[in-house]
């Protein structure tokens, strides 16, 4: 048993030489396999298998409304997709939505973290209130904004707009305003996340570098550019990656607010795939759209992780 401890502690880093050592290493492998098996079987069943099944269904015409036309079509769905204007529009909407919400979250979150970091009192308020939007369901958030905040001549935002002399606006009925609204809602909900993570990283930066900089009479801007920003870079990149992945997969906060409308003004790729499959009931083509979404996600995460590795 004493040798087991050595093996598990990783002290015997080279391959075990004796038969006894080999038996122990094998036991450790078996124990690991037994512990991993349930979780990995569940992950295979709920992620890998559906993925393969999706690729399979995307090669079929599968129309729940007109089942008599169903059948194998090969790559036809993908050919249709490439010349489908609505697909390219939704991809553009997705990129605008993701790019703007992530940029806003990081900029506002960082500015606010820097500001709160300097506060001697009242940090507690920020910590408690910032938790609130983050723990809420995007579906509930969307519902509250759609009604109590943005409804014309009823919501608070409209009330403020009228009092500011801008007049009542159709916040969710006008294509441009609807896009601005869904971006604002996502930013409202998730900026606290960026803020909290960046505030925690700021708090962990070494104090003495700042002391030295102050002695050298570096200005606040210089201290920010030369010290804070480089030290914070890994945290910022991580926030960008996490928020991008979430914004790309956003669904509920748009579905509940505009359902992609008016028309297709706020229809991100997710919503298009959903509408095609479950509203228009073209499961085959919907699968091809979902597969395209997957490819887009892989490309973007690839770019982001390359950014993370680069200096």
């Amino acid at each position, binding site marked *: 048993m004493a040798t087991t401890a050595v093996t598990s*502690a990783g002290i015997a880093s080279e391959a075990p030489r004796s038969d006894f050592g080999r038996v122990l290493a094998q036991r450790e*492998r078996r124990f690991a396999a037994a512990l991993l098996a349930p*979780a990995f079987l569940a*992950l295979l069943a*709920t992620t890998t298998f559906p993925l393969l099944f999706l690729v399979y269904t995307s090669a079929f015409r599968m129309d729940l409304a007109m089942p008599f036309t169903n059948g194998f079509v090969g790559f036809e769905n993908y050919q249709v997709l490439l010349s489908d204007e609505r697909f390219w529009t939704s991809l553009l909407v997705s990129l605008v939505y993701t790019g703007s919400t992530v940029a806003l979250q990081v900029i506002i979150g960082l500015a606010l973290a820097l*500001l709160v970091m*300097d506060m001697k009192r009242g940090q507690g308020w920020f910590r408690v209130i910032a938790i609130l939007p983050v723990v809420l369901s995007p579906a509930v958030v969307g519902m509250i904004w759609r009604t109590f*905040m943005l409804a014309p001549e009823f919501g608070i935002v409209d009330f403020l707009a009228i009092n500011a002399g801008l007049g009542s606006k159709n916040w969710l009925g006008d294509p441009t305003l609807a896009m601005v609204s869904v971006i604002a809602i996502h930013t409202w909900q998730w900026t606290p996340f960026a803020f909290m993570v960046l505030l925690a990283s700021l708090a962990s930066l070494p104090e003495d570098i700042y002391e030295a900089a102050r002695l050298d009479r570096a200005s606040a801007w210089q201290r920010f550019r030369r010290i804070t920003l480089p030290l914070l870079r890994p945290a910022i990149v991580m926030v960008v990656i996490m928020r991008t992945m979430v914004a790309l997969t956003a669904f509920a906060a748009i579905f509940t607010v505009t359902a992609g409308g008016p028309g297709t003004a706020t229809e991100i790729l997710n919503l298009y795939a959903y509408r095609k499959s479950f509203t228009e009931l073209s499961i085959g083509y919907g699968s091809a759209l979902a597969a395209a979404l997957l490819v887009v996600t892989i490309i973007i995460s690839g770019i982001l992780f390359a950014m993370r590795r680069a200096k």
Partner: protein
Amino acid sequence: MTAKRLRIIALLAISTVFLLAWAFPIVWSVLNSLKTDSDVLAYPPKLVFTPTWEAYRDVLFGSGSILPNLLSSVIISVGTTVVTMLMAVPAAYALARLRFRGKKFAGFYVLATQMLPPVGIIIPYFLVLRNIGWIDTYQGIILIYLSFSLPFAIWLLVSYFEDIPFEMEEAAYLDGASRLKTLWRIIIPQVRGGIAVTIVFVFLNAWNEFLFAVVLSGNTVRPVTVAMFNFVSVEQTLWAKLAAVSVLAMLPVVVLGVVAQKHIVKGLTVGAVKGGGRR
């Protein structure tokens, strides 16, 4: 007025604006849920009014009560949490502490599954569950929820397991304890805090989920996030009732969030460093 004074006032103003912006939609929903239907519709909006529990009484005990939906949400969230933890704790321990071939790949696989967009896999779920008759069942929804709760829970737990000193295990092995016994008696108590944080996160994510619930639920199993749609229709919106349902849907997660506030921040940053974290 000195420059310093001005700075403090500016700081205070900016802080107030942001705190208000984040708190207001939630506070406003709570206020509206305590109004009568005519008070909700008053223009300009009423900040002072006589509070009433009417809307809550209606949505909880009136016709079309949402009590069954709240129960659905509780069963789904608790079920998902229990199953997830039973699978994630052993897996995270193996990934963090044991040596075996393919460990790196296993870790990468878990991370990769976490990045899967839900819309990308909802079609196969729907087709398969419909085939085996699991649409509108608890087992169906809980099984599918594992797709996002498991990878997240495993990654978060790995970071906690990695923090325990190896000496603790060694001492136990020297005393002749078996691997399983050591895991159960020595290791698990050490990561109690991490397990609690993970439970909070898994519960929150399951309670808040919407896309899978909308497609895979039905008349028997319908969580409150989906059921709240019944209060908004083209003909009329039942404002006070909608506010009451929103507040009921927010209540458990807000309470959990405020109580576990410090740990949530830690969980988020651990996730940030490890590349985990969802929603």
